[in-house]
């Protein structure tokens, strides 16, 4: 079929119908092919509603109805790299009232007081894979760029005081029973560990004899922020958590968490008393012991607690 070129505007007194019984696409193509582009010499569709239309009625609307199982979509394609900072961008939606945002949502549905959210997504994710989202400002400090939750293979590690390299990783094979249900949540550069450990009868002899070892949690999901040997986070937890680690009566709550060992250990947190003396402090108890603070009736020690620390990423 030959194309028909129309030089003037088309005034439609009724609907424009393109229904066809033949196969293939039915489409309207608006293209400017007159050579060099000049100001306002572009292709566009305007849908302008009546100026006196009631606020309760739709003034202008585009509906994409598949009529079947197909996909309804709008594509924004541009191969030209224009300015990223100007008013005009390559592919955008919602250029409203002079705002330069790629995606500007003023208020989609303000018809009722209870349904006036600016942006509603009911069945899909919002995915921010690039630079994250800035909240409350435009500085780097306002950026939230990471959220993640998962599990990790928590291990105990014994660090020997006054050395830099002597340490022992105590794995699940050193226990008669070991169950780790610990999880983590990372928000930005803060990591929260939810510790949930059950173990029974650790067999590593260093746990009973060496008072110069202090306990660490090892194989953390994220490396600890480099803060030297100073405080690195906070710990809280249930009664079981503290008592199972048998706080030293001489130091009470006066303990601190440090990055594991010295600066060479990046993926461990150590618990030690402020004086570096252990005196049975900060080591898990044996089921055969009768500690002052905790006497597991079942013979199985259950540690639960929460630790928050900073990471570099």
């Amino acid at each position, binding site marked *: 079929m030959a194309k028909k070129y129309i030089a003037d505007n088309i005034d439609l007194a009724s609907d424009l119908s393109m229904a066809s019984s033949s196969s293939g696409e039915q489409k309207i193509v608006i293209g400017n092919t007159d050579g060099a582009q000049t100001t306002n010499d572009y292709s566009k569709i305007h849908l302008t509603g009546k100026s006196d239309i009631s606020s309760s009625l739709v003034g202008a609307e585009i509906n994409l109805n598949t009529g079947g199982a197909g996909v309804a979509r709008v594509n924004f394609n541009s191969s030209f790299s224009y300015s990223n900072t100007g008013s005009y961008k390559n592919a955008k939606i919602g250029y409203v009232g002079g705002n330069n945002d790629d995606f500007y949502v003023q208020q989609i549905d303000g018809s009722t007081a209870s349904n006036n959210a600016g942006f509603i997504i009911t069945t899909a994710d919002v995915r921010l894979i690039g630079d994250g989202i800035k909240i409350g400002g435009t500085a780097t400090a306002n950026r939230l760029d990471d959220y993640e939750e998962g599990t990790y293979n928590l291990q105990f590690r014994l660090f020997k005081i006054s050395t830099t390299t002597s340490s022992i990783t105590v794995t699940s094979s050193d226990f008669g029973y070991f169950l780790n249900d610990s999880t983590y949540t990372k928000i930005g550069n803060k990591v929260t560990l939810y510790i949930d450990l059950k173990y029974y009868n650790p067999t590593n002899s260093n746990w009973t004899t060496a008072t110069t070892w202090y306990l660490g949690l090892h194989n953390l999901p994220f490396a600890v922020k480099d803060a030297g040997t100073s405080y690195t986070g906070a710990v809280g937890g249930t009664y079981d958590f503290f008592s199972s680690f048998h706080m030293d009566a001489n130091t009470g709550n006066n303990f601190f968490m440090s990055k594991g060992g010295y600066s060479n250990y990046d*993926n461990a947190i150590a618990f030690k008393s402020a004086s570096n003396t252990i005196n049975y402090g900060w080591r898990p108890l044996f089921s055969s012991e009768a500690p002052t603070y905790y006497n597991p009736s079942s013979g199985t020690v259950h540690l639960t607690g929460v630790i928050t620390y900073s990471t570099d990423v």
Partner: protein
Amino acid sequence: MSLVKTIEIDKVEFVGKWKTIQVRTRTDVSEEGSVISSSYERDSYQLIDYSANTDLPQDVQPYAEGVWSQTLRDELQADIDAHAQKIAELEAEASSSES
């Protein structure tokens, strides 16, 4: 209608001065080709624990090859030696003040 479970390393990061290797493993459960569930598990490995890159778990070794260089190992050993020296000095100082 069959469920398929896949487990693969989906992120490896090198963090900090000593290039601690953070490994994230993703587990997906798919039904008819669509992922219906996914979860993460993490492990971390630090240079000080491995005298050779080949001591690492096999699937992590390729990542360590390019980062845990001999130069980095030498720097770590120098750092350990410096700490040991500092500790020795502090202990000597504490010992002399007690006596």
